[in-house]
């Protein structure tokens, strides 16, 4: 009898199916509405790669997932570098306590320290991910990058951006610095399934990952259409993968975290 144990019938998996349907809804929304933005962004990223530049991927908290999606993996492209705020602590610039204080994302001065630990080169560009697009540390990075005349792609949830106040001292948000804005299309409050009054589950990070891969496909297409090589990283199980990948990464020594 139900209720006396933790057993659950598979056919009752109604809520998980509902989640899958909701996720696919947001994936479809991203695909249908962001095609032009993704293609434009891919062109800018492809041009950056051809010029020897790296795309600097910046995100904090769950924005990190997008950076991880593109940063050095089998089936991915080489010229990406992940900003990881954890690096500030790992490299001894800040304590674990400061790292784990949620206020760190409000610290505009920390942005400069974060930029300084990486070797960012002239042809590099930025891709910054944030649902709300208002974190002061991220806005400061965008502001700095724009001052240096870099291309910036911003991935946000426009619903959330439009319903959030700017928090940076300048009153600006990430989208104010973007050459291209890609909209995740998720809601201001990204919680989706109702279990007896408690809201659970999110879509924004998975949709972000899907956008990241759609960007990868479009960068490939753009580079190939323009007769360029596409620097794809091989999976370790493929013969010669180590040598192939090393050849790609040697080009950027000192500019990316392995």
């Amino acid at each position: 009898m139900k209720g006396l144990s933790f057993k659950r019938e598979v056919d009752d998996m109604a809520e998980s199916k509902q989640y899958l349907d909701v996720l696919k809804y947001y994936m479809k929304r991203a695909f249908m509405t962001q095609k032009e933005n993704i293609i434009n962004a891919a062109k800018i990223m492809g041009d950056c790669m051809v010029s020897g530049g790296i795309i600097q991927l910046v995100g904090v908290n769950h924005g990190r997932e997008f950076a991880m999606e593109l940063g050095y993996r089998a089936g991915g492209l080489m010229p990406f570098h992940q900003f990881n705020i954890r690096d500030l602590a790992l490299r001894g610039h800040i304590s674990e306590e400061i790292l784990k204080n949620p206020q760190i994302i409000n610290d505009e001065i920390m942005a400069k320290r974060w930029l300084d630990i990486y070797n960012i080169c002239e042809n590099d560009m930025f891709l910054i991910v944030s649902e709300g697009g208002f974190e002061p540390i991220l806005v400061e990075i965008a502001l700095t990058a724009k001052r240096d005349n870099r291309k910036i792609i911003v991935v946000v949830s426009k619903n959330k951006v439009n319903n959030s106040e700017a928090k940076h001292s300048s009153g600006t948000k990430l989208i104010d610095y973007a050459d291209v804005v890609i909209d995740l299309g998720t809601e201001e409050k990204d919680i989706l399934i109702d279990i007896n009054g408690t809201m659970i589950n999110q879509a924004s990070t998975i949709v972000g990952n899907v956008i990241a891969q759609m960007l990868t496909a479009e960068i490939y297409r753009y580079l190939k259409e323009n007769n360029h090589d596409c620097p794809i990283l091989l999976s370790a199980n493929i013969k010669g993968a180590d040598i192939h990948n090393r050849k790609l990464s040697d080009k950027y020594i000192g500019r990316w975290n392995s």
Partner: protein
Amino acid sequence: MNTINMELFYNKLNDLLDTVYEKEKENIVKAAQVIAETIAKGGIIHTFGTGHSNGFGLEMTGRPGSLACIHTLDTSDFVLKGLVTLEDFKNPNDIFERRPGIAEKLYDLYAIDKKDLFIIISNSGINGLVIDMAILAREKNQKVIVITSWQHTTAEDSRHPSGKKLYELADIVIDNCGPQGDALLETDGKEKICSVSSITGGFIAQALTTEVCNILNQKGIELPVYKYEDSKEAIEFNSKLREKYKNRI
């Protein structure tokens, strides 16, 4: 060969997600049952994976609508806690995670309780460290749920001295249905592009959350889920929740 573009990826991914759901819904439910039991007893769920697989834990916690009782093991915590220098940790001539005893030392870094449970994520399931962690958890009578790529793990030999693969040490295995090498689209070269395991893994993380919450709710157990902080009550609720699992997550 199909033209590589975002539409091709989008269509193939949709099919793949349907495959994951249909193929693995039973295993997801079984895993959710064990996870729910653990949570009901006051246990924590520890996630562990090397490289990109460690994103699974991030998907599963840390924001409104997520379970609070999730902790992620991370080898860079050795550096964060000052036990190893960053230089030593990244030494290419003595790969950190291949050094003997790392699994035990990593396990001992955290306050892990014997009633806790492990979710270990690895596409290939052949890497020594994840297998060592699974062995360790089993020795301590902790349940192990494994997320792996069936196609990948059956195609390669294990690198562990025992010859075992991660899935062989699992109480429950969930296939993320990724292809060997993780990349979904074939190009005209030998490379494939567009990784999928984080996406299908992310879906599995979310589906597990849904099923776990459903089960806990049916048992009348309050869901240890962070609320959206748009009221004083919600902020207090989250604060109490963090306090409940303090030092363990």
